[in-house]
Every structure is written in structure tokens, then in C-alpha cells.
């Protein structure tokens, strides 16, 4: 089996001086990327990183992110890339759960004192806190060479945390085989080529962005980064200036582009294909994008972090015929719809999507019970409810879990409810996802006040904004007399959704 490290090494040998990653004025060629990754790996080994040791990355998308990712893998380590928008206590929770000794982060993120708070440092976690070892700038200028470390396909390569501030963090364990299999499948159905110039706005710490990074670097393409959709015109300008050939987004990315950037004013004639994943996209938006970039192919895709990234897709030529579908299984993956007893159901019947393939995760880190619950049949229970047509295309009808999907983020309602419970004036609360034109879903919380309390919405919002990552902040707050519950006192969240 060839790992993603092997793929990169091959790309490096073929495209040495070509830009691999570009972010504004900052870039790394393929040979620079590889050299830096080797230096990072050597340093980690010198510092005592053992095979299978977890290394956190708390770094925004940048050329260096990729070098650090591959550096950790080259050292035999496991990459734990964390959400850079998370609050400090959330980051500390994940780091502790992963048992990570080393990491790369800016000192300010972990509240470390440093005269260079904005630089990336190799850090070591010690009992007393976090120790800064050396800045990435210094690592870059070191003259060190790697003693190669053999990678086994079943070795763990990455842990991706999908949720969890309190309670049980869900760390998806991906092996080298998982990553290699899924990246190879994606390259089978997407027309990824060495000549591509890809514009990426997706965070690399999530599975979708992670797949964009590795599928493209593995063939020698150039990834141009824009790290925010805050200024959509800047993103489209970058597409035009770099003569970008491919673009990846979630539904909210396209909603923002369509509502806030005049695509028709730009020359996007170099675009060969665009993709969408991470939750349903309104068919009207798909049609508008296809009108705005008519020569470009449009790929609708479906996936989960538990499947490394990708499970399904609609071939570009069938996008109109299968509009509304999440797609059929990608190469190397089997999808089935099953009933509550785990038995396959006939075409057209609603049930849960089960998935099988070499891309399915090894389980949840340090959580055998949750792993057993979701992988016990040898298939992955996705939690997505859908029907399948006779051509094998799935049509989503709902979710088995209460998770809220907002933009590219999966949010557990409990995370918000637990944070609200910290307010003394709140008796109880329930968070749900409500329809949002830009994000797909936004968060709404229903709150029951304590008797006699006159707590205001502003107080609730202020508490949320102070203590929750931006993507977890409710858009709407409503006070109600009581939450709908069963006779046994279990919250009936669906009744709130139906309101």
C-alpha cells in the first residue's frame, strides 16, 4: 500500500520547484515542503516523540500546516489537528484526551508567555502546563536530516475531534490505510491533475479540508489558500488572479458567494470543476453556480469524518438528473440502507445509511463503547436517514442523532446546553438546529427561566459569546414556560423542531 506520505514523496520528485502551497506572499515549493517536513520529523524524534505519539496542531491553514502534518507522519507520530476557533478550555480538553505530549501552536493560543506570541512554536505539555521548545522559524534554518521511519498501513495517522467540550470528546481514529484508501477513491472520481491550481477556503483540521490537502498534494497540484469567507470578493479575485482550476466548498460557501460576490464580473474561465459537501445545498444554488461558471463541472458529494472524508458523490454529468440526491457510493465503498434491526431495506424505503470500505475509521479514541455502538456490525452506522433509488443514489430524509450541522461544523446540542446551565437564572434549556439560508442550519435555544428570574436575552448571548467558539453561538434565543418532555421526563427535541 502507498501511504499519503509516499504519494507526497512521489509528487516532490516530479515537481520539485513547483509551488505546492500558496498563501498570500507566503509559499512553499514541493521540495521546500518536503525539506521542512523532514526537519520537523527529525526534531520531534530528537525530542523524544515515540511511534504513535500524538502531536497536536493548532494552526490556521498555511503552507507550514502541511509541512507540520507530513513532518509528524514522517516521525511516526499521529496528527491531532484542532479547531483553531475553539476556546482555550476546549483545546486543553482535547489535548488532555488525546494524551498529546507535543504540539505546534502560537503561544498566545494556549496563553503562554512569549516575546514572540504570533510565531508557531514546537510545544511540550508538562504537568505544570505548556513549555515552548523552539520556533518554527528556527526549525526551518536548522541543518538536520531525517533517519527514515517505516510506516505500517495499520498505524494510526490522525485523530480528528468532531465534537465535545465536556463529557466525552469524539476523536475519530484514522489509520494510514484509511487515509490512503479514501484519497485514492476521491482521485478516481474527481478529475484531480498535477496541473491544477486549487483554491481552498476549508479548514484543514476538518475532514473535508484534510481531503483537499492530501488529494491535491499527492498528485503535485498547487493549493492556493484564502482562509476566510469574510470578504467573498477577495476569494473570487484570488480565483481569477491565480487562474484557479478547482474550488471546494460547503453549502454556506456558495451561499455567501452567490449573495455577496458578483461572480459574473470575474473571469473564471480556467475553472474545470467545483465540489460541494458537508450537508445539503439548495438545488437553486447549485443551478446558479452552474450558470455562473458554465464550463465547470459540479460534483455533489457526501461524507463523514468517520469515513475519513468521503462516502458518496454524484458524477458531474448526472447532477441535473440526480438533483436532490447525496450521491452514490464512491469507488471502494459500499452503501446500504438498513432498518432499526440492521437489516437491508428495499429500494425507496427509509432507513439508516450503513457504509463499508477501507476508509472507515478505526473507532473513537479511548471510547470503546461508542466505537462498538457505531461499528459493531463491521459496517459504519452513519446516523443519516435516507432512501436509496434503484441506481444506488441516496436521498437524505433526516438524522438519527441530534447533532446540529452549521456551515462545516457539527455541533452537539449538549455542548450549548451545558454552557447555558452555568447561568444561575436558567432552569434548563434545549438547543436545536433551525433552517438558515447561509449556514444550512443555525442554532436556536429554548430556555426555561428559574422562577422569579428576569434574565435577558442579551445576558444569555453575552455568556455564549464569551464562552463558546463562534460557530456554536446561538442565532436565536426564546424563553418558554417548559420544555416538551415524555412522561418519563426525556426531552422531546423533535417537538421543538416542529414548532
Amino acid at each position: 500500500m502507498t501511504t499519503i506520505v509516499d504519494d507526497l514523496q512521489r509528487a516532490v520528485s516530479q515537481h520539485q520547484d513547483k509551488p505546492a502551497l500558496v498563501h498570500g506572499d507566503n509559499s512553499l515549493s514541493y521540495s521546500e515542503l518536503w525539506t521542512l517536513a523532514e526537519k520537523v520529523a527529525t526534531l520531534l524524534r530528537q525530542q523524544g516523540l515515540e511511534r504513535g505519539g500524538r502531536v497536536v496542531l493548532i494552526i490556521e491553514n498555511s503552507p507550514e500546516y502541511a509541512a507540520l502534518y507530513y513532518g509528524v507522519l514522517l516521525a511516526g507520530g499521529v496528527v491531532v489537528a484542532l479547531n483553531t476557533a475553539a476556546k482555550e478550555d476546549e483545546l486543553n480538553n482535547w489535548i488532555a484526551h488525546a494524551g498529546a505530549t507535543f504540539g505546534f501552536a502560537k503561544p498566545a493560543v494556549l496563553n503562554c508567555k512569549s516575546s514572540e506570541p504570533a510565531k508557531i512554536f514546537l510545544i511540550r505539555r508538562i504537568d505544570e502546563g505548556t513549555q515552548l521548545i523552539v520556533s518554527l522559524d528556527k526549525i526551518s534554518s536548522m541543518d538536520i536530516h531525517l533517519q527514515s521511519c517505516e510506516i505500517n498501513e495499520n498505524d494510526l495517522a490522525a485523530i480528528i475531534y468532531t465534537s465535545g467540550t465536556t463529557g466525552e470528546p469524539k476523536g475519530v481514529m484514522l489509520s494510514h490505510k484509511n487515509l490512503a484508501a479514501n484519497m485514492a477513491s476521491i482521485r478516481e472520481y474527481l478529475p484531480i491533475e498535477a496541473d491544477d491550481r486549487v483554491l481552498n477556503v476549508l479548514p484543514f483540521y476538518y475532514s473535508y479540508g484534510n481531503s483537499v490537502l492530501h488529494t491535491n498534494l499527492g498528485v503535485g497540484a498547487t493549493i492556493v489558500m484564502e482562509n476566510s469567507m469574510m470578504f467573498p470578493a477577495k476569494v473570487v479575485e484570488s480565483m481569477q488572479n491565480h487562474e484557479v482550476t478547482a474550488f471546494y466548498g460547503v453549502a454556506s460557501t456558495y451561499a455567501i458567494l452567490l449573495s455577496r460576490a458578483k461572480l459574473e464580473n470575474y473571469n473564471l474561465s480556467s475553472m474545470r470543476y467545483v465540489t460541494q459537501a458537508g450537508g445539503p445545498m439548495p438545488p437553486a444554488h447549485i443551478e446558479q453556480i452552474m450558470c455562473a461558471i458554465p464550463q465547470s463541472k459540479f460534483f455533489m458529494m457526501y461524507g463523514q469524518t468517520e469515513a475519513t472524508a468521503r462516502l458518496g458523490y454524484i458524477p458531474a454529468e448526472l447532477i441535473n438528473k440526480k438533483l436532490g440526491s447525496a450521491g452514490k457510493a464512491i469507488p471502494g465503498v459500499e452503501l446500504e440502507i438498513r432498518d432499526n434491526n440492521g437489516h437491508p431495506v428495499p429500494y425507496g424505503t427509509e432507513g439508516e445509511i450503513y457504509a463499508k470500505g477501507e476508509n472507515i475509521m478505526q473507532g473513537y479514541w479511548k471510547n470503546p463503547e461508542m466505537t462498538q455502538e457505531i461499528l459493531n456490525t463491521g459496517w459504519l452506522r452513519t446516523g443519516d436517514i435516507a432512501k436509496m433509488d434503484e441506481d444506488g443514489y441516496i436521498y437524505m430524509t433526516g438524522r438519527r442523532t441530534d447533532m446540529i450541522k452549521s456551515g462545516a461544523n457539527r455541533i452537539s446540542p449538549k455542548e450549548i446546553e451545558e454552557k447555558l446551565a452555568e447561568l444561575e437564572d436558567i432552569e434548563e434549556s434545549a438547543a436545536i438546529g433551525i433552517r438558515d439560508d447561509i449556514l444550512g442550519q443555525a442554532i436556536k435555544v429554548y430556555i426555561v427561566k428559574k422562577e422569579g428570574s428576569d434574565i435577558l436575552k442579551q445576558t444569555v448571548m453575552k455568556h455564549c459569546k464569551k464562552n463558546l467558539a463562534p460557530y456554536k453561538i446561538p442565532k436565536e434565543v426564546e424563553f418558554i414556560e417548559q420544555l416538551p418532555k415524555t412522561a418519563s421526563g426525556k426531552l422531546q427535541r423533535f417537538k421543538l423542531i416542529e414548532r
Partner: protein
Amino acid sequence: MSVEQKVRLYILENFLFTDDETALNSADSFLEKGILDSTGILEVIYFLEDDFGIKVDDEDMVPENLDSVNNIVKFIGTKTQAA
């Protein structure tokens, strides 16, 4: 209250949740400092349209106009003059 003070206060209260004036420099990039994201900027636009009576067009949504307190103050000045 000057335009700059008003904008600063809005950002401090709504995105940094503090009244500590030193938490924000008027030249700080909202994007680079992670103060705003793609939905936060829309909230800022609603604030500018409501409180300053200006119209923020799609082509105005560029860092030069909106990516710091200083840029916003300059932008409001230009928009108000043009009106």
C-alpha cells in the same frame, strides 16, 4: 461620541465582550486577529447600515473598507461624503 469610538465600542462589546479599551487597537485586522468570521462581518454590516445610515454594497465588502476600526471609519467617511 466620535465615529471611531462608536465603532470600537460596538466591536469590543459584541465580539470581544469587554469594555477594556486596550483589548483592541484601531489598526487591528479583524481577520488576522480572529475577531470576526464570515457571519460576524454581516452583523457589522447591519450595524453600519442601521447606525450610520449607509448602504454597504457587495463590492464594498473588501478588507480595505471593513477589516479594522480605522478602515471602517475611513469607509463611513467616504460613504457619507458621497451621499
